[in-house]
C-alpha cells in the first residue's frame, strides 16, 4: 500500500491547503484520542492536565502535527527521513505502534469535522495511506 504519484500529488496539495490549521488539528486530534480511547492516557501520566484543550495537550498536539507536516516534505523517503524520530519512539518513548493507528483515525475524524464535504473519499484514501506509511516509518527502529 505504498504511495503512488497520484497519492503524493493529493497529499502535497492537501497539506499545503491546511498548513495554517495544524495547531487546531493537532490539539483536536490529541484531545479527542485521550477522551475516546482512554487507554492512551497511560502514556501521559506525567502531565498535570489531560483534559481536552489543556496546555500540555495543545502543546503536544502541535508537536505531533509538525512531525506529520515534516513527513509530507519527506514523502519520497519516509523511512530514511524519519530515522531519528523512529529511534526516539523506539528507545525512549516506546509507544505501542497500535496507538499510531488510533491517533491516525483521530486525525482523519478531525479533518472531516473541519473540512466537511471537502474531505472527499479520494483525499481520505491518500491521507490514510500516507499516515499508515508514516506510522510504519515511525516503527522502523522498534525491533
Amino acid at each position, binding site marked *: 500500500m505504498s504511495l503512488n504519484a497520484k497519492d503524493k500529488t493529493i497529499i502535497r496539495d492537501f497539506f499545503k491547503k491546511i498548513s495554517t490549521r495544524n495547531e487546531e488539528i493537532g490539539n483536536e486530534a490529541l*484531545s479527542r484520542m485521550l*477522551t*475516546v*480511547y482512554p487507554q492512551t492516557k497511560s502514556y501521559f501520566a506525567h502531565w498535570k492536565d489531560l483534559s481536552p484543550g489543556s496546555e500540555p495537550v495543545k502543546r503536544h498536539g502541535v508537536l505531533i502535527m509538525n512531525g506529520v507536516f515534516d513527513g509530507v516534505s519527506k514523502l519520497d523517503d519516509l523511512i530514511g527521513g524519519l530515522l531519528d524520530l523512529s529511534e526516539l519512539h523506539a528507545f525512549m518513548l516506546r509507544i505501542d505502534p497500535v496507538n499510531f493507528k488510533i491517533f491516525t*483515525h483521530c486525525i482523519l*475524524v*478531525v479533518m*472531516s469535522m473541519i473540512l466537511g464535504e471537502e*474531505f472527499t*473519499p479520494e483525499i481520505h484514501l491518500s491521507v490514510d495511506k500516507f499516515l499508515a506509511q508514516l506510522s510504519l516509518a515511525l516503527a522502523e527502529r522498534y525491533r
Partner: protein
Amino acid sequence: MVEWTEEERSIINGIFANMNYEDIGPKALSRCLIVYPWTQRYFSSFGNLYSPETIKANPQIAAQGITVVHGLDRAMKNMDNIKAAYTDLSILHSEKHHVDPDNFRLLGDCLTIVIAAKMGRNFTPDVHAAWQKFLNVVVSALGRQYH
C-alpha cells in the same frame, strides 16, 4: 453487560434522531469501498465498482448503505442488550455473507468520519466517545456468532 450513562443514551439517540439515513448510509458505504478497496469483495454482484466516481453513483451500493444504517437502529433501540438483538444479524453476516468481522470496524470508522463531517463542531470529544463506545458494542455483537 454494557453500562450506559444517561448522557451517553441521550447522545446516541440524538445522533440517530438527527440522522438523514438516505444521505449518511450511501456516503459511509461508498467511502468504505473507496478507502478500503478490498471490502469490494463482498459486493461483486452490485454492478460497476470500477472507480470512486462509479462507486459513488452506484444505486445498489446506495440502497445497501441505507439498509446498513437502518440496521444500527436495532442497536439504538435495544441499547441494554445489543448482543441479543444482533444474534440473527451476526449469523447472517457469518453464515450467509461470510464477512470478515474486521470489516465491521472499517465501515464503522468510515461512518464516524461521515457523521463527523455532518456534525462539524457538534461532534465534540464527548459525543465522539459515546459514539465510539456504541460502535464498539455493535461491532462486537455482530462478530459474536462467528465460529
